[in-house]
């Protein structure tokens, strides 16, 4: 029996693997094209010290947030509150440095990440225990967290001069021409990617997103997994908040507003399915880089400031359409493959 199927099996398998790769590859290709075009129009985009640095630096923070978002999306949920969480933690970071002069940077990181995780936990608890659609909950906390932020910050703002030089340096300094921020983002990405692919926990995220009811029947610890997903998303947004403070130095009550759409957009561009169960944090990360790189490439390609939003929109749509086309073609191949079995 099985010998009869080994041949079709193996090549069906190959094609299947190809789907997974093709999704990320498609986006990666788009990214490369954008970079090449921009560099052709103006070599500085890639070949000047600042060009190279900003290419890596600008998307780093969104990558972190998008990775968290991707994990939540894969469980068939969504976290719209990341922007507010990021803003709140960013301001917390500033306050810590102001109110506790000389506080070790690492401590600030820990506190901020923990705080972000806590905010995420609130989301997760409401979703998992109250069994309320994540979109509603996080839309609510999007308002609530931002409101708290504005209440707390008022019209105060943290200025670069309030932050220690060594901390601000994190936002700009490089290690072998690679910005620290980018390195942090990469480390997180690699760990998250490995976890999602190779551990029971990671696979259970996919299972839950793929069919929540079945997950219950299986006796998977759905509640715990959901909490984990939201805590991760919150914690990564928190980490993003600290880095935001380091990168931009100035934090007011509106920091990070609107990031939720960027994060979801990045993940979706990267091939993470809104309906859960499909996609990878790698895709989400590439999506984030593409999104922000496009933003920076447009003026260089001579597209006037006003039209950039429009072009970004077109590109988002283009990306997901491309992604879809690839997926559909693969699926048809898979079905036709049965003929050779």
């Amino acid at each position, binding site marked *: 029996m099985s010998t009869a199927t080994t041949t079709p099996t193996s090549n069906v*398998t190959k094609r299947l693997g190809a789907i997974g790769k093709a999704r990320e590859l498609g986006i990666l290709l788009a990214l490369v094209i954008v970079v090449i075009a921009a560099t052709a129009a103006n070599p500085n985009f890639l070949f000047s010290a600042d060009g190279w640095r900003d290419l890596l630096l600008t998307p780093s923070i969104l990558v972190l947030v998008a990775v968290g978002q991707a994990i939540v999306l894969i469980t068939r949920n969504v976290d719209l509150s990341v922007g507010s969480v990021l803003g709140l933690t960013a301001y917390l970071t500033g306050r810590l440095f102001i109110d506790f002069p000389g506080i070790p940077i690492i401590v600030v990181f820990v506190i901020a990440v923990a705080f972000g995780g806590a905010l995420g936990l609130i989301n997760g608890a409401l979703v998992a225990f109250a069994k309320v659609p994540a979109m509603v909950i996080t839309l609510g906390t999007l308002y609530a967290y931002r409101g708290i932020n504005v209440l707390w910050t008022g019209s105060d703002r943290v200025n670069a001069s309030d932050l220690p030089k060594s901390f601000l340096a994190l936002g700009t300094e490089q290690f072998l021409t690679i910005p620290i921020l980018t390195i942090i983002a990469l480390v997180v990405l690699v760990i998250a990617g490995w976890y999602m692919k190779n551990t029971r926990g990671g696979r*259970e995220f996919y299972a839950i997103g793929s069919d929540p009811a079945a997950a219950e029947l299986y*006796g998977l610890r759905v509640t715990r997994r959901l909490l984990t997903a939201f805590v991760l998303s919150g914690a990564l947004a928190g980490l993003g908040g600290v880095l935001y403070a380091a990168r931009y130095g100035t934090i007011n009550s509106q920091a990070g507003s609107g990031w939720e759409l960027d994060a979801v957009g990045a993940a979706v561009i990267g091939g993470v399915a809104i309906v859960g169960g499909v996609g990878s944090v790698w895709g989400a990360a590439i999506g984030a880089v593409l999104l922000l790189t496009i933003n920076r490439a447009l003026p260089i390609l001579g597209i006037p400031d006003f039209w950039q939003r429009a072009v970004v929109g077109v590109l988002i749509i283009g990306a997901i359409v491309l992604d879809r086309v690839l997926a559909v073609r693969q699926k048809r191949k898979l079905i036709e493959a049965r003929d050779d079995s």
Partner: protein
Amino acid sequence: MTIPPGAPDRAPALELRDIRKSFGAVVALRSGTIEVHAGSIHALVGENGAGKSTLVKIIAGLYRRDAGEFRLESADVDFTSTADSKAAGIAVIYQEPTLFPDLSVTENVFMGRQPTGRFGRIDRNAMRTEVDGLFQRLGVRIDPDRPADGLSIADQQVIEIAKAISLDAKVLIMDEPTAALSGVEVDRLFQIARSLRDEGRAIIFISHRFDEVFDLCDTVTVMRDGAYISTSRIVDTSVDEIVRQMVGRDVTELFPKQETTIGGPLLEVEGLTSAGVFHDISLTVRSGEIVGLAGLVGAGRSEVARAIFGVDHYQSGTVHLNGKPVPAKSPTAAMRLGLALVPEDRRKQGLVLDSSVARNTTLAIREQLAKFGIITSGFENRAARVWASRLEVKTNALSTVAGTLSGGNQQKVVLGKWLATEPTVLIIDEPTRGIDVGTKAEVHRLLSELAGQGMGILMISSELPEVLGMADRVLVMREGRITAEIDRSDATSENVMFAATHAEEQHS
């Protein structure tokens, strides 16, 4: 209480007494009682809605009992989640397959208990070799690396079985595992079940097919209306006895297909082809005729049905109804022309589970019900009541949520929904899957009555007796092709099975 064979002296592996469970107003279980011994295959039979699946779900820890005793090897237990029951060594195959569509077949089998190496890294190779062995043992021909998405119900059921067996649990519960399977798979399943029994496992087997019950099981417990009726040794009882206990009355003539005068062709399919699923399908259904479409699982019968009805697309071929061409990819148009399809998967394709019985029954005829484009619940209830009572759906209000009906009663609602459209040709995929004897006879009587009124019926069924009993003509499919057309008169289980499996012989 009869002492079942196996180990008379030992305490029962699993024992439930007077289990009570109600969902709001609905009392699903009044006094669920069953006692299963290690090394025995114990049949649980009862009409649709008797409470079998509910009992199973309580054992699985999916529902919590309202009252009653629940013992594992004479130790009281109280499961709060399916994880508990798994831990206690209980494996369950639920009536409705539940796989993760986006994950590979292999992952589906091992989800939550994958073999892991360092840093909790999943050992994919170990998983793969194990699943290959498993599938070989079961004779499954499914690529372990393909996603579960797009598998036939039958294939899904097979995977559920593989999953449950791989748990190698002390107690294995199978809720109508064979409903979707046909001959070959069933035989394989039974071989394995027997070997498990001989290893000393306790097995509960739920089925509406008595030939299977008598072939496989050594003990049988009968339930009716959520209450325990009797337990007896298979050898001490008979089909008639059990049926009487189940329905509380005598049921006669399971397949009452009466001779009808067969008229002109209604449905004509020419060279229908969809790459990878089916090839060059040509068939005709005449008025007053029931055409049986038999075949092994995965033969592509359902795909053909779906393509004819316009749900699935196909590359080439034509479909005509009453001589009028049926446009591809438009169920709406097909319905207007008088075609109806009772789909294979009632939960995903047949019903809106969260919607009321009334809404479900009238969904397909909502346009006809509307007056001046306006439709109200009043209209719907009036129309729904007709079919509910005609098919004796087991519920007290038309506002009942369809998802809470028992499997068989759900199937009745789907039937009513499509008969309400008064089709000229009815395509019906697994008409009596998971339907109890009483209802089954009901359905068959209904079908032949409809045929008598001149309706053309294309009946896909994996149950040979049904095909042989009901069909005027039997078409057999294998791997997406029609391999034989046999007339009622000379159709036998042998020649049908041969046409269905012929290739398999050559393969091995």
